[in-house]
């Protein structure tokens, strides 16, 4: 395989992160926001794995961290879906724009 180096992978991670952030910021659908969160977490994972491959002292830890992040993502997705379910019960919609009770 051609040795690309660390930088392209970090760029990929950053790009994925930006896409995820944009998704969170712009999606009206709550589940869409969750997808954005998943994208962000995956971007972090890409970062971890890239560092694990190209930084020798980090070889094992990187991949372990990636696994931990996957588990965390799963747990957090479960909780978030529970919240969205409750939100749906109260508002009969998953449009987050209707959640304006904290308006000052």
């Amino acid at each position: 395989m051609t040795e690309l180096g660390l930088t392209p992978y970090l760029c990929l991670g950053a790009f994925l992160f930006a896409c995820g952030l944009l998704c969170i910021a712009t999606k009206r659908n709550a589940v869409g926001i969750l997808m954005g969160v998943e994208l962000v977490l995956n971007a972090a994972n890409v970062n971890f794995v890239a560092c694990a491959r190209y930084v020798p002292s980090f070889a094992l830890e990187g991949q372990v961290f990636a696994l931990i992040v996957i588990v965390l993502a799963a747990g957090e997705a479960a909780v978030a879906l529970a919240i969205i379910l409750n939100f749906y019960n109260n508002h009969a919609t998953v449009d987050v724009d209707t959640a304006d009770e904290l308006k000052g």
Partner: protein
Amino acid sequence: MVGWLLATPGRLYVIATLLPLAAFVLLLVAGCLRGVCRPYRETNPLARFIYFFLGGSRPLRSGAFVATAAIALSAVLAIVGLIRFLDDAQSASVSSLEMEQRWAERTTWAKVGPSGVDSAVTLELGYRIDHLTAVMFAMVAFVSTCIYVFSLGYMADETEEMHEDEEAHTTRPGRFGRFFLFLSLFCFSMLNLVIADNLFQVFISWELVGVCSFFLIGFYHERPSAAFAANKAFIVNRIGDAGFLIGLALVWTYFGTFNFQEIFRDLASGPLPNGMTHTLFVIAGIGIFLGCMGKSAQFPLHTWLPDAMEGPTPVSALIHAATMVAAGVYLVGRCYPMFSPEVRLVIAYTGGITLFLAATIALVQTDIKRVLAYSTVSQLGFMMLALGVGGWESGLLHLITHAFFKALLFLAAGSVILGCHHEQDLINMGGLRRKMPVTAYTMLMGVLAISGTPFFSGWYSKDMILSNAMGFALQHREHIALFILPLVTAGMTAFYMFRLWFLAFTGEPRDLGAEHAHESPPVMTLPLVVLAVLSVCVAWGWPLWDPHASYLGHLLDKANPNVAGATVFEDHRAGWLALVAAASGFALALLIYGLNKIDPDELKERAGAVYDFLREKWHFDELYDAFFVRPAVALGYGSARFDKRSAPLEQAEVADRTMNVTSLDGVLNALGLGTLSVGRRLRETQSGMIRRYVTVLMVAAAAFVAVLVVIYLSA
């Protein structure tokens, strides 16, 4: 408690002073309780009981009886105290140190200043009885008792549930209790003033009597004239009090004490203490005299007394004839060693101008109370003149005799006013001696006394004053006016007092009110008789025909501070001149008003402009209005304009609700509204839109990271 009260005889005076205060407190508490219980009288049984026990919607008469009993007891204690004091003073076995212990006492109630330092201001409460105090106290208490008894009858109008006030065109609840409330407070403060042994206590009482005077003049406060008169009295008094404060401050700074005895001791032992220059001593004296000027209505602070006749007649009798205005003269007598010869000359001239001025105005007044008011101002001028030329004894003797006959005159006037159904104008009276004989003849006693008829009390004091004035004037020829003025005024006094008596009591009734006049009930005529008897005989001495043999005068003289340099001049020929003046005044009044030989209207025509000038009280009110009142009012409106609207005068009453920065209101409004708008803008960040929160978070985090990167790169 009783043991403490009777430990020394001086404490009798303390009890006598506190009795009216107790009556005041009782009336005040009762009134407040009644007012508090009134809204609950339907629902709460206890409130209902208290409310109806304390009189319900009608003013309770028993409060007045309690107050009268208190002051009567005070008078009894005063007389007992006087007798005991004279006993002690005359007995050889009581040393002067013992006298101090038995008849004087003091306690410190406040120390103002750094603690532990000797130079802190020590405020004391104390009393010291000497001859002057004992006699004055007895006079005040006794005259007050007579006036309280008179008021029980005179103020009976106020016991109605709703009283109709014709002058103010309203119907209002009766205020019987309130009258006695303020009268009691007044008596307490006047008695406190008399027994005080230090200037600060005098000052406190001074202010308190001024406040009571304000309340009592403005008793019929629905009438605008009464409200204005009360304001005028208080404000003019305050001007005098400003001088008093200056005097007090100077006394404190250089003598270090307010106590009279200590000040006199300091003054007697040679030079002025603590580097006080003679100029400052003179200024201190003038300052204290200014206070007396305000209180005793001397020129130029005399304008409040005639207007003070808006109050009920017993108030005029007590406050503006016998006691409060006497406080000024009393203080001059008390502080006599503190007045340098220059100040005494000022006092004499002020008294001289006042007595002449007031007498000329009294010549042409038609309201019975105004004549008496100007007469009071004139007689106070006599007292000041006497004190100024060195006649300590004569001035204070005139104070005591004047108190009795002036109170009599005012009470008799009150009897006349009530008898003629609230008619006060002399033009509308006449022939009352047939309808109201007791009032007429007791008032005649008072008129004879004030005119200086031989063997009446006024004669003794006035004779002594004129002899002192003549002696002084002959010694110092440049001050001859100080004798001419009182001599001429003595004649004028006789004239206008007899004019008053003839117009009111002789001739034919000139009005329906006078036609249907009736004599007053005994509760009102008894004090008149008592005061008439005293007006005749209070200054008697042996031999009766010797004007300088007055027993009361000799008593007062025992308290004479005998200031070195204030020698008493006497010239006994003055008595004959005074008699001539008084007789000519009486004769003129008899011709014009008694026998109708000369027509007063013709005299009015021939006098012309002079008559108008006198009628308008020498235009003093207009003068003060133009010089002081108008600028003050204009200043007030100007300040209001700056506050409210920088615009024409008419809009100065309306608050500015704009943000017009040229008015103070506008600037403050701008501040407030600006803050409000900033807050409103800031509130928009809490939009409740989650996506916006995320966006903001994102942008902020990115900015933060960028800043960190820049720092990292440049470091």
